[in-house]
C-alpha cells in the first residue's frame, strides 16, 4: 500500500483545492516552522515551502518540508534551478520523497541580484520546464541520464505560470510545454487584475489545457495600500487593477478591506470554469489563512482516504 498525497487526491476527486504558502525561517529554528503549521492545519490541503525565495537564504525547502510533515501539514516542496545543478536536484527529490514529501513545485528561481547574496554564482543548469521533465522521468523510473532506478519516486509535479507578464501568447505556450512534459498542477501569480487573468484563461481554455492540468489561481491578502503599490511597482511581471488600490486607499480599516478583497477574489475564482483551486500566499501574515478559507466558504476541507491501494494509484497515473 502506498499513500497518495492529500492535494492530489483532493484534486482528482474533483474538489476545489486550497493551498497555502510559508517561508522557512532565516535561522536554524525548526520550531518556527512547526508554529506556522498551526495556521494551515485542516485549513489548506497542502502548503508551499519556498526555496530561498527572492534569493534570500533561508532554511532549505527540503528539510522545511520534512518538518512541515511533522507539523501535520502536507508540504509542496518548491525547487528552483538557481541553486542546484541536475545532480543535486535529482538527489534532493529522492531524499524528499523517501521522507514523505509528495508534491514538488518546479521553478526557475528569482535572480541572485534580488536577494542578500547578489555576488553569488547562479547555477541555472536546467530551466523549470526541463526540471518538470526531469521529475516526470524520475516518476517513470529513469534518471535524466537515462539510467534506470530501482525504487522510483511518485511525485505530484507542479509548475508556475504568470498570466500577467507580457507577452501573453508566450505565457500560454510555456504552459503548454509544461503540460506536455508532465506537469500535473500549475500555480499562478496572485490575481489582482481579473480581466487580464480571464483573457489568459480563455486562451488556456481554447487549447484545452485546463482539461489536462489542474490550475490553482494565486491570491494574496494585503494589509495596506503600500503592499499593493509595492506589488505593482517593484515586482516585475505583476499588474494590479486600479480598483483595488482605490479601495485600499479609501478604507478606514485597510486590514479588513484586504481580507474582503481576498475573500471576494477566492469566491470569484471558485466560480470560474477551468480553475481547480486557489493558492493563498499570505506573505508574513500566515495567521489570516483560516479566516480567509472560512469566509470564502471552503471549510471544512474534504477528508481524503487514509490509504490508497497501489491499483488506484496506477489508475490515477494512467
Amino acid at each position: 500500500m502506498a499513500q497518495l498525497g492529500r492535494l492530489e487526491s483532493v484534486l482528482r476527486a474533483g474538489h476545489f483545492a486550497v493551498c497555502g504558502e510559508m517561508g522557512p525561517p532565516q535561522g536554524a529554528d525548526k520550531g518556527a516552522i512547526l508554529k506556522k503549521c498551526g495556521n494551515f492545519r485542516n485549513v489548506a490541503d497542502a502548503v508551499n515551502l519556498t526555496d530561498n525565495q527572492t534569493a534570500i537564504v533561508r532554511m532549505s525547502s527540503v528539510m522545511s518540508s520534512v518538518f512541515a510533515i511533522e507539523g501535520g501539514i502536507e508540504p509542496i516542496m518548491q525547487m528552483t534551478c538557481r541553486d542546484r545543478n541536475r545532480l543535486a536536484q535529482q538527489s534532493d527529490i529522492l531524499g524528499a520523497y523517501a521522507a514523505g514529501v509528495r508534491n514538488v513545485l518546479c521553478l526557475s528561481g528569482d535572480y541572485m541580484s534580488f536577494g542578500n547574496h547578489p555576488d553569488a554564482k547562479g547555477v541555472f543548469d536546467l530551466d523549470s520546464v526541463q526540471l518538470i521533465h526531469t521529475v516526470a522521468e524520475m516518476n517513470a523510473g529513469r534518471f535524466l541520464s537515462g539510467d534506470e532506478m530501482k525504487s522510483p519516486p511518485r511525485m505530484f509535479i507542479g509548475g508556475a505560470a504568470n498570466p500577467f507578464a507580457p507577452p501573453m501568447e508566450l505565457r500560454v505556450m510555456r504552459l503548454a510545454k509544461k503540460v506536455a512534459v508532465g506537469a500535473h498542477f500549475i500555480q499562478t501569480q496572485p490575481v489582482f487584475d481579473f480581466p487580464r487573468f480571464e483573457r489568459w484563461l480563455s486562451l488556456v481554455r481554447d487549447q484545452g489545457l485546463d482539461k489536462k492540468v489542474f490550475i490553482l489561481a494565486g491570491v494574496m491578502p494585503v494589509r495596506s495600500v503600500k503592499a499593493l503599490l509595492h506589488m505593482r511597482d517593484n515586482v516585475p511581471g505583476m499588474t494590479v487593477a486600479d480598483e483595488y488600490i482605490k479601495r485600499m486607499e479609501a478604507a478606514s480599516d485597510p486590514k479588513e478591506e484586504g481580507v474582503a478583497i481576498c475573500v471576494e477574489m477566492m469566491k470569484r475564482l471558485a466560480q470560474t470554469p477551468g480553475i481547480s483551486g486557489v493558492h493563498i500566499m499570505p506573505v508574513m501574515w500566515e495567521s489570516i489563512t483560516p479566516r480567509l478559507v472560512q469566509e470564502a466558504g471552503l471549510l471544512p476541507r474534504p477528508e481524503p482516504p487514509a490509504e490508497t491501494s497501489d491499483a488506484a494509484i496506477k489508475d490515477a497515473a494512467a
Partner: protein
Amino acid sequence: MSAFTKKFAAFVERHPTLYKMVLLAENAVKKPALNCQSCGQCVLSYNAFTCPMRCPKQLRNGPCGGTRENGRCEVYPEKDCIWFLINERATKLGREKKLLKFHKPVDRRLQGTSAWINMWAGRIEGMSWSKDLEEKDVQPGGSKRDTKS
C-alpha cells in the same frame, strides 16, 4: 546528417588548425550579429534566429515570470527580455509554432565548441528551416500524457 557530413566533421576534428578555422568562421557570423554565447548546440532556427542563451537565466524554453510591462528584463531593466524579442520576431516571420518545441537540458560539455561541426557530426539536432514543427520536434510524452483525467 548524412554520412558525408559526418566524415567531414570527423576529418575537421582530427585537424585542430582546421577546427579552429571553422570555429573562427562560425564565430565571425554568430558573435557580432547574434550575440552567440557558444553553447555549441544552436537552437536559433527554433527561436526566430534570436539566441535565448542571452537570457541571464539561460532559459531555452520560454520566458520567466519577470518580464516587465514594457518588455524589458527583470534583471537588467535597460535590456529587452530576450523572449519578448523572440516572440516579436517569430510573429513577424510566421515562426510562432517553432516556439512550442521542448528543448532538452543543455549538454555542458559542448560549451565553446563549434555548433556547425557538432551538427555535421550528428551530435546535436540540426537546424530546422520549416515554419512548422516536424515529427522529431514533438515533445517527450507529448499528448499521450494527459495528466488530469
